[in-house]
């Protein structure tokens, strides 16, 4: 019988989606680049200013401050998220009833709208009426300014970020852990390996791909998040928790400097690409030279 090979174009099926994709993903990126060379306050006509937005950004102390805050926020949150979700993943990797029920409690924060999450934590950390300070004072300590102390405020919002993301990352670890063949552990047991040795020499190296996903996704999520800071501190006290996306937001929608804000977003976008790319490269090298 003659083989029947049907070749079908089917491009038409992709057109509706690509219209929206172009309008709301591709076009904004092009427009962002264009706008960054203009000065525009929405009311008066756009004015071409060349590289002035960028040269001003270079000198903008608070812009650089916001980039540093974002870095601190991200690199404080990501290791904690990694450790917490790995511990949760290891503890809940079995498919028994107990694990299945308990996973829900850790994953749920990821499903809670971030505005509501921020509101809840703000109330928990309220200086005078919050539960946390009540516990602290009843143990004989002084109440803590969780959100009004510049150094502490950053830690507090990091804590909320960890709470939001840890359960989601836990699921990635569970999927990864379940993919490790039982035989590896059995062989190690015969050789008399302790639990810790098994974890260190078998589990961790075999989780390498999961580790990559968890770290990359955590960085991407943290570096861009501004809702938690917006709700809990609105960037304060001072500029202590003004992360870069929040600063850009303020420039655009409080000061109405749209060109300037576009230039700022462009730099934020480039930085997040560079981070993602570097992480990827480092990990690829590790995998090539790794034990797998």
């Amino acid at each position, binding site marked *: 019988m003659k083989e029947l090979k*049907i070749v*079908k*174009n*089917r491009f*038409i*099926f*992709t057109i*509706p*989606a*690509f219209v*929206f*994709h172009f*309008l*709301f*993903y*591709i*076009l*904004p990126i092009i*427009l*962002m680049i264009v*706008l960054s060379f203009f000065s525009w306050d929405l009311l008066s006509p756009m004015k071409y200013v060349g590289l002035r937005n960028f040269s001003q950004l270079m000198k903008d102390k608070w812009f650089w401050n916001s980039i540093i805050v974002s870095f601190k926020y991200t690199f404080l949150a990501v290791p904690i998220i990694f450790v917490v979700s790995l511990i949760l993943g290891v503890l*809940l990797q079995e498919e028994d009833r*107990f694990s299945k029920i308990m996973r*829900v409690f*850790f*994953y749920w924060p990821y*499903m*809670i*709208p*971030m*505005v*509501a999450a921020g*509101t*809840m934590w*703000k*109330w*928990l950390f309220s200086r*005078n*009426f919050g*539960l946390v300070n*009540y516990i602290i004072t*009843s143990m004989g300590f002084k109440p803590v300014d969780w959100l009004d102390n510049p150094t502490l405020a950053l830690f507090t919002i990091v804590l909320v970020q960890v*709470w939001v993301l840890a359960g*989601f990352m836990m*699921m*990635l670890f569970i999927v990864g852990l379940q993919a490790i063949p039982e035989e590896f552990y059995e062989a190690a047991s015969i050789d008399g390996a302790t639990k810790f040795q098994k974890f260190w020499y078998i589990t961790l190296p075999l989780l390498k791909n999961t580790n990559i*996903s968890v770290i990359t*996704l955590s960085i*991407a*999520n943290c570096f861009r998040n*501004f*809702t938690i800071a917006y709700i809990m501190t609105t960037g304060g006290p001072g500029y202590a928790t003004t992360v870069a996306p929040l600063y*850009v*937001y303020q420039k*655009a929608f409080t000061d109405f400097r*749209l060109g300037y804000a*576009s230039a700022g*977003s462009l730099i934020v*976008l480039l930085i*997040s690409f560079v981070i993602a790319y570097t992480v990827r490269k480092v990990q690829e090298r590790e995998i090539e030279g790794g034990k797998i």
Partner: protein
Amino acid sequence: MRKTIVIILAVLFMIPVFWTVTSSFKSMSEIYKYPPTIFPKKISFEGYINIFKQSNFMRYLYNTLFVAIISTIITVFLCVSLGYGLAKGTFRHKDFFTEIVVITLFVTAQIIMVPLFVIIKQLGLMDSLWGLIIPAVFTPTGAFTAIQYMKDLPDEFLESAKVDGANEWQIFVKIVIPLSKPLIASLAIFSFTWRWNDFVLPLIVINSGKNFTIQLALATLQGQYGIPLNEILAFSVMSIIPTLIIFLLFQNLFMKGLSAGGLKY
């Protein structure tokens, strides 16, 4: 031992929710009492009654549901159709088209909010619910999931229909869509949740109170002076209930579903 640690951690994780829920049932005088009461001495529905009486809660609920439901329907259609075209089509530069979808996985509203604002304004969608729907119906995560799913669909199904003389559209409606039920279910559930929880888009698009979504209303409420705390907390509790119900119903889908490739958007 393992169970004890897990339970302690779960209790720690649930403290903010617990404290918010119990506080939301306190009267204003009790909420500001020191030392605070863990459980309300007298259960008061003051906060809940006030959000229905004084704020436009029903209006916000309607707006949010409208946006979430309409965008979900469109999202599902766009993603399934795109996934089918990209996975089963044979047009030129297909890999390039797939690649540009994957690249935009890294682009979120927070990063492109300024140009997005300009485009939405030019389209005349500012301060309208459609301004929350149209820019959000395409989601790279959903598209990516659909492409992966369609790749795994066996070609034989499509080809046998072709032999039977069905045209392209009939194949899509009668064969592809029924075979994509699991994909459609998870796209629908995720899309609804994303739209319900969204804050960034409403923040830049909506100005007038009558068009507020629940999340935007909750954020705005907190910026105003003199809004009683029990009302804000009751509002928070109300805002998490719908997604909680969906989450509990479709737990497995959530936890295993898009986890593998999922970014939040």
